[in-house]
């Protein structure tokens, strides 16, 4: 029994990790684009970006998942754009998570960029650097250093938030654990597999915490 449960939980956790990784890969760069939008001197773009961020941060991720997964099927003439089965559910989840987390990241980036003293940018300007040279050679690393603590918060939350994808039946680890309660693999009424999923989260987040501590130390050589 134990091995059956562990096998099923492992499979679920693999899906959890996949969603986690894909969300980071998408949201980390997308968040930067959104943060530039929210700092743009072109007002319509700034207000559009701020409105999107307001809506995404102001509504539950669970609701966004449901909307992204189900609504296109009703309104698009060709029916749902998502492939059928787990692949489609994963894709829809990934899209919802990337958009949601990009909005949160964008605000952290904005804080990080605006927290770099304006004198840094001016020093770059008087040295004849272009705007993009200033961003990549002067601002970026100082911003990264500033955002490590808030980003580690968000990223650890993301690990646990992946369980929300269960609302559209994406088969992540909570889904896998819950299955033993409802009946699966010939067992039903088993409660401990659901609780045992907590160990997976805890161990993985422990590893992430160590990683962020290491990154912070690596960046401690400058102030």
């Amino acid at each position: 029994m134990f091995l059956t449960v562990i096998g099923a939980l492992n499979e679920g956790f693999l899906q959890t990790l996949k969603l986690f990784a894909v969300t980071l890969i998408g949201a980390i760069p997308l968040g930067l684009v959104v943060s530039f939008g929210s700092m743009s001197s072109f007002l319509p773009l700034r207000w559009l970006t701020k409105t999107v961020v307001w809506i995404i941060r102001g509504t539950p991720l669970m609701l966004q998942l449901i909307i992204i997964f189900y609504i296109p099927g009703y309104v698009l003439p060709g029916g749902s754009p998502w492939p059928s089965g787990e692949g489609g559910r994963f894709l829809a989840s990934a899209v919802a998570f990337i958009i949601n987390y990009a909005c949160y990241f964008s605000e952290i980036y904005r804080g990080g960029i605006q927290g770099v003293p304006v004198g840094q940018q001016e020093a770059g300007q008087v040295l004849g650097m272009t705007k993009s040279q200033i961003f990549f050679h002067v601002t970026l690393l100082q911003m990264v250093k500033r955002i490590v603590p808030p980003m580690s918060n968000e990223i650890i939350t993301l690990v646990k938030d992946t369980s929300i994808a269960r609302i559209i039946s994406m088969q992540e680890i909570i889904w896998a654990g819950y299955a033993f309660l409802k009946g699966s693999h010939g067992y039903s009424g088993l409660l401990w597999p659901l609780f045992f999923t907590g160990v997976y989260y805890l161990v993985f987040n422990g590893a992430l915490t160590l990683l962020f501590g290491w990154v912070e130390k690596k960046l401690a050589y400058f102030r």
Partner: protein
Amino acid sequence: MAILDVQNIEKHFGATRVLEDISFSLEQGQALAIIGSSGSGKTTLLRCLNFLETPNQGRILVNGETLFDAADPATQREAEVRKKRLHFGLVFQSFNLFPQYTALENVTLAPRLLAQERPDFKQNKKTILEQIQAEGQELLQKMGLSDRAGHFPCQLSGGQQQRVAIARALALKPDILCFDEPTSALDPELTGEVLKVIRALAEQKTTMIIVTHEMAFARDVADQVIFMDGGVIVEQGPARQVIECPREERTRQFLSRYSEN
């Protein structure tokens, strides 16, 4: 011909007039000190020269070439402004070194980025970068910092940081080097080492504009002195004359506060 010619510069922030009808010129190899109380517009003037602020009126000419003309938007295009800035160097009151780079990297970063725009960069990449590196080392040595080249700004004293900042500005070989109260963030002990470096630059006939509160230094090092008050130039002339026997009552008042202590 004057290397720098500033004509009728005006700058206001909203309704506040920060600079009014500022005109002066500077000869090659001369040092100009700008003195005056806080809020008199000295820093804004330097920032206008370095294109960190856009004047509302007036013209700025370097070597007879019009770099800026408030009446001519063609002189204010972003891409060209970037190149024009290179006529000027600016040393900030708060140093503004890049904290993530070593002293040497701070000095060589901008020259390395600029070198990438040279047509022969790809061909001679190695020689060009080696030369920039060597020049950076030499500048730090001039500043008395050759043993600090590999240190990060947070490992340096304020005086050392400011000397790195001076080397960084010199690395681009500006026509005119500007100092914005270079010693105001330093304690008296560290002030001396920075002033010594600036004095040496003056002896080598570096064209400079120095905004400072160090009156004795301005008198000894500068050729010309401008006294500003309330956004206007109250008095300008040879350094010794302005500081030792000012003609204007307002200048006398200002200077008397320095001789009291």
